[in-house]
């Protein structure tokens, strides 16, 4: 962990247009929850549906994409990363620091609003708010690592990330039960299911698989990102 790298990365994430996306998405989630409460739709079933399909199914991967790729991909694209890479700091340390920044943003802009939205609807009925917030936190960490890796590997990180989140997790996962096993949002639901006692949902992936999968994917993505950053080729204008 390097505090200078973290400082520059936070400034880049929070001082630019990206903050709008980081703020607007969770605000939309809280606004929908508030609206449902106003019109009297704050039942446990509604809360679970909103958390599953909107909070964990839509907002979480999108925020993961913004935070995970945002901490590194634009710097590689415009060459500003040279300022960090041309210093006597181990490249895996740079990758890890950027991951910590992305993971902390996920905690702030994904897990916390998920808790607030669920709490707004049903307080802590059946542990739904705590369950989905915890699921969003762990899955947010995994998303941050995976999308950070994508940002190091390819200039098309956002496109590939959108394809993964929308097509693999959203579409294929909806029809092919086997695909759900390899879906970060399904792992988030497994954690939520473990914490919550709600009868309105049952996770498709066992907690025994989901937690180790989150750990393995996060660690592997970070290790690969660190190594790839060591071999990152940057060329000039020629």
């Amino acid at each position, binding site marked *: 962990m*390097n505090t*200078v*790298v973290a*400082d*520059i990365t936070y*400034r*880049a994430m929070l*001082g*630019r247009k990206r903050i709008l996306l980081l703020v607007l998405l969770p605000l939309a989630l809280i606004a929908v929850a508030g609206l449902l409460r106003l019109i009297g739709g704050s039942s446990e079933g509604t809360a679970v549906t909103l958390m599953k399909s909107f909070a964990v199914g839509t907002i979480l991967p999108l925020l993961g994409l913004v935070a995970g790729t945002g901490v590194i991909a634009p710097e590689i694209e*415009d*060459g*500003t990363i*040279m*300022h*960090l*890479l*041309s*210093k*006597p*700091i*181990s*490249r895996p340390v740079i990758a890890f620091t950027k991951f910590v920044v992305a993971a902390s943003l996920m905690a702030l802009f994904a897990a916390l609003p998920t808790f607030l939205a669920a709490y707004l609807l049903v307080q802590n009925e059946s542990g739904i708010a705590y369950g989905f917030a915890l699921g969003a936190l762990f899955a947010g960490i995994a998303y941050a690592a995976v999308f950070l890796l994508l940002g190091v590997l390819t200039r098309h990180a956002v496109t590939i990330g959108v394809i993964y989140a929308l097509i693999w997790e959203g579409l294929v996962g909806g029809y092919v039960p086997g695909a759900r096993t390899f879906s970060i949002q399904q792992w988030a639901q497994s954690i939520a299911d473990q914490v919550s006692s709600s009868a309105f949902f049952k996770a498709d992936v066992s907690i025994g698989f989901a937690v180790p999968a989150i750990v393995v994917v996060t660690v592997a993505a970070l290790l690969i990102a660190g190594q790839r950053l*060591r*071999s*990152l*080729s*940057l*060329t*000039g*204008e*020629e």
Partner: protein
Amino acid sequence: MTVTTVPTVATRPGVVQLSGVSRWYGNVVAVNDVTMTIGPGVTGLLGPNGAGKSTLLHIMAGFLAPSNGTATLGGQQIWRNHDIYRHIGLVPEREGVYGFLTGWQFVLSAARLHRLPNPDEAATRALDLVEMTHAKDRRVETYSKGMRQRVKVAAALVHDPHVLLLDEPFNGMDPRQRLHLMDLVRRMGAEGRTILFSSHILEEVERVAEQIEVMVAGRHAASGDYREIRRRMTDRPHIFRVRSSDDRRLAAALIADPSSGAVSLTDGGLEVQALDFGRFTRLLPRVARDAGVRLWQVSPTDEDLESVFSYLIQPRA
């Protein structure tokens, strides 16, 4: 008994050594089998656009792996070796500056990333060196291109490196800023630092570099002092302009010697094509004295960097 070993040139601190370096992208060869040693002093890396200068500089800076061959600094491998940056300062051609930071924050961050014992003092000194103290509290995105270039130089110098690599450093600077940076580069070279800068502007290289390395179409075309390079081009006659008390008589005397390929009488004096540089320069005063002619002016017309460079990039048909 004490045994003292003398380090080879390549392992001396501050010496960048490329040995048989090639770099290709698919079927395109960007740099082809380049071997060169860059030591203390100012070296200009010269070549037309697309010659491979930037690729070579990025290999030396550890941002590109050679497809073949090795690049070392003081005997240490450069590629995948982050410790090497304790000794290297890099000024890339790309903007590469965080626009949302102030000049001070940018240079201070470089000092802190180098873990210098007194980063504030180092950043102040570096900004002062490039005359950017007055604008240090403005955000970099509000700077002109020349100011950004100078703040990048300050960040590259903040840790007082042995080696400074600059990719087209004078781009975007106004004439005064350019002269100031040229002076700074010359001074640092004179202090014993290894400075390599790439440029396609001959005048810049001529004014700053003691040594030139010329790249043409990915190959290392020439190395050394450009006047020496010119003298080694024995397949091209040297052209001299000579003014004397009697040009016609001198022309007749010179053409009799085989070292003169052609002599023409022009309004500005004689234009002599010397086939053998050494023989001609020894012969001319003697011939003039024997012919009773006084020499007023003898000046080579194609020994400037521009002529040397054009000969290198346009081989004789």
